[in-house]
């Protein structure tokens, strides 16, 4: 019994994704991550998943980060081989009982006017503002420059 508890504890500690989860009200924000940027880069993209366990929908309306002059919520689409990126001026809906996903090839948090390059291995804070849940601060885990998924997850670069 004690052994099992210890094992469960070890398993929990060994799963960084769980450690990164942030809860606020009925929202759970998981696995915020971003990519290392080049020395002269001025922008970076952040990704995360927002689950809404509540009965009422919420909306990610804005964000800020001490590392960027401005943070916006963007969407990206591929249409006939053409990449298009747009700002979601009204933010991103997080439906009741549903999930809003910000992931490569889709929605992302755009860090604009980086004050210093994002370095692989560091954590970059950002505060998300939701219409209902209020503000939540997350730490983006910075991976490799061209990573397709957060470090340690299948699909990552290394």
């Amino acid at each position: 019994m004690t052994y099992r508890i210890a094992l469960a504890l070890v398993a929990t500690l060994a799963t960084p994704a769980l450690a990164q989860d942030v809860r606020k009200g009925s929202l759970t924000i998981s696995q915020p991550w971003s990519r290392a940027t080049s020395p002269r880069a001025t922008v970076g993209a952040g990704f995360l998943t927002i689950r809404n366990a509540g009965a009422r929908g919420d909306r990610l309306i804005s964000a800020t980060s001490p590392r960027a002059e401005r943070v916006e919520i963007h969407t990206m689409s591929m249409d006939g081989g053409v990449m298009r990126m747009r700002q979601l001026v009204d933010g991103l809906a997080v439906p009741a009982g549903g999930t809003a996903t910000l992931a490569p090839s889709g929605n992302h948090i755009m860090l604009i006017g980086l004050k210093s390059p994002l370095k692989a291995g560091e954590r970059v804070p950002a505060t998300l503002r939701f219409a209902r849940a209020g503000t939540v601060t997350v730490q983006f885990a910075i991976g490799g420059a061209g990573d397709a998924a957060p470090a340690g997850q299948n699909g990552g670069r290394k």
Partner: protein
Amino acid sequence: MSDSRTRGLLRGTALATVLTLGLIVTVTGCSRQPEASGNGATTSQRAGPGGPFKLVDTQGRTVTNETLKGKPYAIFFGFTRCPDVCPTTMARMELLRKRLGTEADKMNVVFVSVDPEHDKKEDIASFLSMFDAPVIGLTGDPAELKRMEKSFKIYVERVPLPNGDYTIDHTARILLFDRDGQFVDTMDAKEPEAQAVTRLKRLIDA
């Protein structure tokens, strides 16, 4: 039931057609090769993307369609402030080069900036320094870039953002050219890795 069978049959026919066309392209491609080694072949007669261009690399050296001849190349058009598809495509090329091993140096990877307004040589060099692959980063005169985008059939549109800045919609496919500078095919960064490696090997061995 019968409807789905018809659809299946149609799909089969379509596949057969694609395969047949592919075969024709391959065959004509092979028979054309000896002629292409002479100087009679003109790129303008071909329907595929490509054509003459004259740009500069990150060290200020002139790079043209002629100087690239001798090795096949994979060319991608993007910009350094593109936060997603451009870095992941470069990372993809880095990975494919690793899979190619010693063969990797028998081809070139080329990145052309579609944002001459922002991307100076230094910005492109800085962007490419993030990837463990020798990529030829190109920029140049905006009018020359426009001509090249047109002949390479790359869609590029500068789109203003509400914040006063701009982004660039652009074709995000990788174009493959053979050692004679003739267009071979396009490649999608999301194509299965093994398949992509096989295609690059074929390009190198051709």
